[in-house]
């Protein structure tokens, strides 16, 4: 309870400082919106020139793309500060202040920023899903909708966990941003149906960096009823729990080895 209160206070403070620069938030928001729009347009132009992509029609591919934006957007709202930790803050000796406070460092990092830009992605993703779904005829069941919610929410938790673990390495190596980038970029693969990839990439995207587990498999379940929705829900939640536990463990282990670089 105390932490909820603390989090809200910190976020309020960070939002107030953001509001000083309203115009800038607007520029940042629209640039995000625009960049997603361009990738979408590119995909649309490609699909215009072929009947279907590996058996998936245009609205189906659009649905995949839109759904992939949801967990990414949710993660983006809450954990953007991890990028700064990985790229800059440890290297610049800027983390010391967090170690002096009687609250876990990881909590403080999350309380540092709330990124409203994520809402742009969330809205665009939802709009894309709505447009594509209205062009599709699928038998919607309670289970297949549930698995989408679980995929988006717990998928976000998996992405955040991966980011925590990669950012934590900065405590040892001073700068882990590029590594975080490499891992994070795999989310680009999950924007398309898994069917376009060879087997070893599919295995990688389900069992190792599970972007496919919480993006592609739930969508396949909704569109084609390919998997048992409740089993899949269980698998995603279990995977999120394991990833989160591992991430916190890695973070704590790395944090203990932190040496300030001075200021």
């Amino acid at each position: 309870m105390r932490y909820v209160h603390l989090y809200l206070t910190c976020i309020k403070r960070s939002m107030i400082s953001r509001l000083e620069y309203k115009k800038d938030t607007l520029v940042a928001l629209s640039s995000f919106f625009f960049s997603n729009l361009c990738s979408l347009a590119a995909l649309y132009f490609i699909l215009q020139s072929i009947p279907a992509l590996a058996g998936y029609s245009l609205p189906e591919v659009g649905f995949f793309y839109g759904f992939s934006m949801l967990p990414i957007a949710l993660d983006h709202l809450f954990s953007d500060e991890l990028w700064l930790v990985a790229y800059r803050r440890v290297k610049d000796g800027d983390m010391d202040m967090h170690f002096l406070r009687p609250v876990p460092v990881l909590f403080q990092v999350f309380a540092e920023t709330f990124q409203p830009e994520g809402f742009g992605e969330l809205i665009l993703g939802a709009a894309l899903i709505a447009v594509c779904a209205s062009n599709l005829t699928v038998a919607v069941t309670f289970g297949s909708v549930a698995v989408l919610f679980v995929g988006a929410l717990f998928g976000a938790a998996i992405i955040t966990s991966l980011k925590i673990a990669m950012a934590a390495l900065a405590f040892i190596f001073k700068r882990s941003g590029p590594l975080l980038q490499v891992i994070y970029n795999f989310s680009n693969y999950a924007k398309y149906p898994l069917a376009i990839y060879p087997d070893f990439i599919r295995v990688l995207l389900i069992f190792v960096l599970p972007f496919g587990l919480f993006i592609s498999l739930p969508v396949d379940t909704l569109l084609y009823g390919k998997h048992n929705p409740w089993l899949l829900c269980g698998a995603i939640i279990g995977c999120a729990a394991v990833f989160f536990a591992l991430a916190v463990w890695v973070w704590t282990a790395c944090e203990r080895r932190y040496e300030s670089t001075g200021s």
Partner: protein
Amino acid sequence: MLKKYKPFLRAGAMDTLSYRFNILIWAVITVFQVACLVFLWLAVYRSSAGGMDAEIHGFTFREMIAYVVLTTVFNYVTFNNDTLWNINNDIRKGTIGNYLIKPISYRGKFAATSFGSLLTMTLLFGIPFYAAALLTLGGLGFLPDLSFPAFFVHLGLFLVAGLFASLLNDVIAYIFGVFCFYTTASWGLNSLKETLISFLSGTLLPLAFFPAGLRKVVSWMPFAGMSQNPVLILMMKYDLAESLRCLALTGAWIVALELFAKLLFSHAIRKVTVQGG
């Protein structure tokens, strides 16, 4: 007259040299990115009406892969400036004052720096990377038949196109940098610029895939000269006349944008808000 910019040229070259270890990370990120695109195009051509041998908007599958690889290398070697960030820093820290009282042009300083880094990148990475890419692609039969004496002409034009692309990229970065006088949203401005360039230059997708109306408009914009046109000149997809026409258009844009940048800067400099310094 140009002599006073030589230190900046050298500084750009040295800067690039000191970051040469970044290349490893770039290589890892890029290999995965290119692989993703290759899988996507593979699925696209497999799913097309004509199958793997289809030609979609003038590109066979092999040419498309060559295009993806060559634009990736081209962008890495050619676009290497921190112009926007440096201008933003100069404004925020107040160091811009130092340049305003010196008898050099602020724009000239950046042009020289980015030319320096282009030279380093081309010599250090460009030559081995292009050679490796061309030999591999050629060996796999992924390049159209290169008829030899003509290829050297295209190679020469390609080098000019690369220089033009670098200048164009630098002046665009400079214009967006000058926008930092009006807003502190440098991060958003930079991502806007990158998106604009990657979409309209043909990096994301060759412009031939765009719908006819949009393609017509975009082909008159400066962006195609930054990525698509140089690579298609190298791949000999453009004949000599077409190549020269592209270069002329890009050259004209450089002049126009430099003039615009000059006007914009003289307006912006009256608005400068320094934070600290």
